[in-house]
């Protein structure tokens, strides 16, 4: 697998300028299981500037329930799933505050919310 998932890529296309989150004391990052050597060329192809880290050497994505124990090459995107996690840092302590996946990401402000305003809607039928 040499590319990020197409649906995830559309979600990333909709992420706005990070200066506004930073000014609210909030960082935003992407994490994928693929090694950095695969992430970097895809990031360049997409024209993204969002910080994007590889969790290749750790169980991070497995631990948060979005990756299978080991890759499944016969499944879509090797069995990887998507999700959004929110963490709070208080001094040296890190707390997990929120997690969503599935249709939970549609409400994040996106192509879906725009299409919902048009006369033809999402055109999924």
């Amino acid at each position: 697998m040499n590319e990020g998932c197409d649906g995830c890529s559309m979600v990333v296309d909709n992420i706005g300028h990070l200066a506004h989150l930073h000014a609210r004391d909030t960082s935003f990052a992407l994490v994928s299981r693929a090694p950095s050597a695969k992430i970097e060329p895809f990031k360049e192809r997409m024209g993204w500037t969002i910080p994007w880290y590889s969790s290749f050497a750790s169980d991070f994505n497995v631990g948060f329930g979005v990756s299978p124990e080991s890759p499944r090459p016969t499944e879509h995107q090797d069995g990887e799933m998507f999700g959004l996690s929110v963490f709070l840092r208080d001094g040296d302590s890190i707390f997990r505050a929120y997690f969503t996946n599935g249709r939970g990401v549609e409400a994040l402000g996106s192509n879906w919310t725009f299409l919902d305003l048009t006369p033809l809607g999402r055109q999924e039928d």
Partner: protein
Amino acid sequence: MPESKVGTRDEWLAARVELLEREKELTRRSDELARKRRELPWVQVEEEYRFDTDESTKTLAELFDGRSQLLVFHLMFGPDDAAACPGCSFMADHVDGAVVHLNHREVTFVAASRAPLEKLDAYKRRMGWSLPWVSSFGSDFNTDFALFTDEQRRTGTGYNFASPRRADLRIAPAAPDGEELHGLSAFALEDGVVYHTYSCYDRGTDVLHGTWQLLDRTPKGRGGDFEGWPRRHDEYEQRRA
């Protein structure tokens, strides 16, 4: 951080699953609302609006650019303003990446402002945007899709369907010394005829872009101080180390 807010992973999971049911309810209600939006009557647009664009002067029908649907972001930038509104700029910071996906769902997206095209182009370069942005300079386009009764057009008031919260807001150019407004309007093109189908204003645009929604998922939320936020993305102070 208050001690009472710290819990175990099991406690968090139980509370999160309970919240998930509420979120799913909102998702389903949102689907229902979108269906209701599509049932709104279409109103034929008879006025011949002209827009200055980077290619040429275009009619409203030509702004569709060969597609059947058009979303117009009414972006606050008046003829005498030096820069666009910070809140509208915040909104526009989210749109570039969405445009190509909308285009492949029969939707053309443009921003429209009353400032002349050369001002829009200069500000667009400063912000690093690529979205199509047209000037409605000299036309009543922006007020015609915000003020819907004769009385509203006469007084220049009645923003957001005459919401009492906005009763004091006077909108330019209907009110000559009034303010610019923001909003989002949807149009359809069928057999050469343009129809207005939807408009929303004020907090109606909150759901459209990511930063508000991402903040709504953080433990501290949107924050309470809106004096210095949002600003234009190049006007925030350097972030503390």
